[in-house]
């Protein structure tokens, strides 16, 4: 039991509780805020896992997306910020069906994919990729930076890979600095989300890697593109639902006004 575990438990519990609360809440504002709480707690879990980039991404994309959801929700439903929302039974069943099938798909995909090997992600992978180097970082520019300098000739530069290189250049000093909770993962994760697994690229120094799953190394192209997309589809579904909700409401209101 240490602080890390405590925070993990807090974060995990908050994420689950907020998610459940959101599903059973009838108040739109509270639903939105519980959604934010749930997604924010997941971001906290990412931070705890050392994935600072993904954590920030989680905040930026999903929490920001919720903001859009709120705008749509309030502006389109016009039931007021505090109006109650009640789903009909049929809708609830459909929602459960769609949600659970997407969850299932996500679970399957994440089961198939091999976990990211943080250590191997930066072993020597970027060296072959090329890139231009801003020679010196003051004291940071040590041997690793110099070695990349020598090999670098390229006309087009992928910004993400470049960043990964530069961080890798400071890898030595960071490794030594045990106070750092966040190892450099941004570049590798970014590449992985875009479909490139740097930790499984050819040229990885396998001695440093655990090589737990051999299949990973044989399929270097499969990144985290698919789960990323599945989650995106989920969001689209939510947005569609918001639009549907707004439309349904409007028809009812028109009926009312005609009777009046």
């Amino acid at each position, binding site marked *: 039991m*240490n*602080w890390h575990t405590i925070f993990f438990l807090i974060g995990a519990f908050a994420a689950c509780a907020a998610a459940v609360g959101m599903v059973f809440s009838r*108040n739109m*504002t*509270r639903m*939105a*805020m519980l959604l*934010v709480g749930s997604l*924010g707690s997941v971001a906290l879990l990412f931070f705890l896992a050392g994935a*600072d*980039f993904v*954590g*920030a*991404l989680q*905040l*930026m994309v999903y*929490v*920001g997306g919720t*903001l*859009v959801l*709120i*705008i749509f929700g*309030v*502006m389109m439903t016009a039931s007021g*910020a*505090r109006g109650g929302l009640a789903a009909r039974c049929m809708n609830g069943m459909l929602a459960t069906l769609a949600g659970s099938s997407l969850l299932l798909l996500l679970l399957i995909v994440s089961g198939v994919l091999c976990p990211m090997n943080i250590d191997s992600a930066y072993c020597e992978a970027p060296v072959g990729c090329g890139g*231009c*180097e*801003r*020679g010196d*970082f*003051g*004291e*940071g520019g040590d041997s690793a930076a110099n070695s990349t300098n020598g090999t670098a000739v390229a*006309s*087009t*530069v992928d*910004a993400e890979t*470049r*960043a990964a*290189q*530069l*961080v890798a250049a*400071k890898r030595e000093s960071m490794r030594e600095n045990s*106070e*750092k*909770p*966040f*190892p*450099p*993962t*941004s570049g590798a994760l970014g590449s992985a989300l875009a479909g490139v697994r740097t930790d499984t690229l050819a040229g990885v120094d396998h001695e440093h890697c655990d090589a737990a799953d051999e299949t990973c190394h044989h399929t270097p192209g499969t990144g985290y593109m698919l789960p990323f997309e599945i989650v995106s589809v989920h969001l689209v579904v939510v947005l569609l639902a918001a639009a549907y909700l707004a439309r349904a409401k409007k028809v009812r209101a028109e009926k009312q006004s005609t009777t009046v």
Partner: protein
Amino acid sequence: MKTWFVELVPPGWQWVMETIWAVVIAVIVIAIALLSVAIFNWLERKIAGRTQDRLGPHRVGGRFGWLQSPADGIKLLCKEDLVPTEADPILFRLAPYLGLTAAFTVFFVVPFADGWAAQQVNSAAFMALAILGMDVFGTVLAGLSSGSKYSLLGGMRAAAQMVSYEVPLGMCVVIPVMCFGTMDLNVIGEAQSGWFWHWGIFANPFMFVTFFVFLVCATAGCNRAPFDMAEAESELVAGFMTEYSGFRWAAFFMGEYTSMVVICGLGSILFLGGWNGPIPWTEWVWLSEHVHPALGWIGNCCGAIGFLAKIYILIAIMMWARWSLPRLRVDQVMTMCLKYCFPITAAMFLGAMLWMAAFPG
């Protein structure tokens, strides 16, 4: 220093010392932020006063009326704390602290000097931006939960504005990140050491333009005049804050200033060299880690003061703009973002990329 502090006790008890260390760091950071809020409260009034051909606060006491801020704080604490019956009681109470927390949280990734960040994070620039984006939730929540239509409109405006301005603001951050090749704010700051022409703003012409777009977007992102749509006191009374009073109102106030400090800090690290002075005088007088860690510490102190000075100057510019310019209309704010800021940053992004390809190193 932390290692030394933690190793004062036997290994089994080191988590206590780590906790203490974390709390101390947090308290220092929050103290700096709160002190800044008090100073900016005073500074804003003074700047407003001077802009308007009057003296500004001087009656409460203290030299140059500095007691105004504490007096204000006491007054706000003593005020009756109202929750409207129409309001959602839980969310209404939660809202101000949400915004405040988000603004304070950003501080833990901002380095005040070389290595002087509460937590050194690789993707610090991105993280700062992401957490700063959370800031608006306090505003939106306040707007939705107040049970007032002015608040609702203010909250909606804030949400729409934030969502729009995050795009050019993010682009403005991406350009220096691209130029320096890292998202680590410490590394970015370090890369700008030396003379002032090493600063990001002078790195290339595109960065120069980007800085000013950043300043505009930062002002809009903080909901400051002339982009204070969420407040818009002549249209929406006080926007999302209409129903707030006393300490909760003060919390919004603190949140606004804190996010200003943070975003100006981000700007000063990305564009204005962070803690590096315009001339590398600390090197000349051997205030460097290479000579002795203690001297490096002193040098860092000077750097932190310089960093704060840059933040203060940027914020003073924001205040100057606030007291000089009328407010834009809500659609004009959106136009400003989508028709001007965003295309300009996109062009600058492209330009900076080409520049780097043309003049590598």
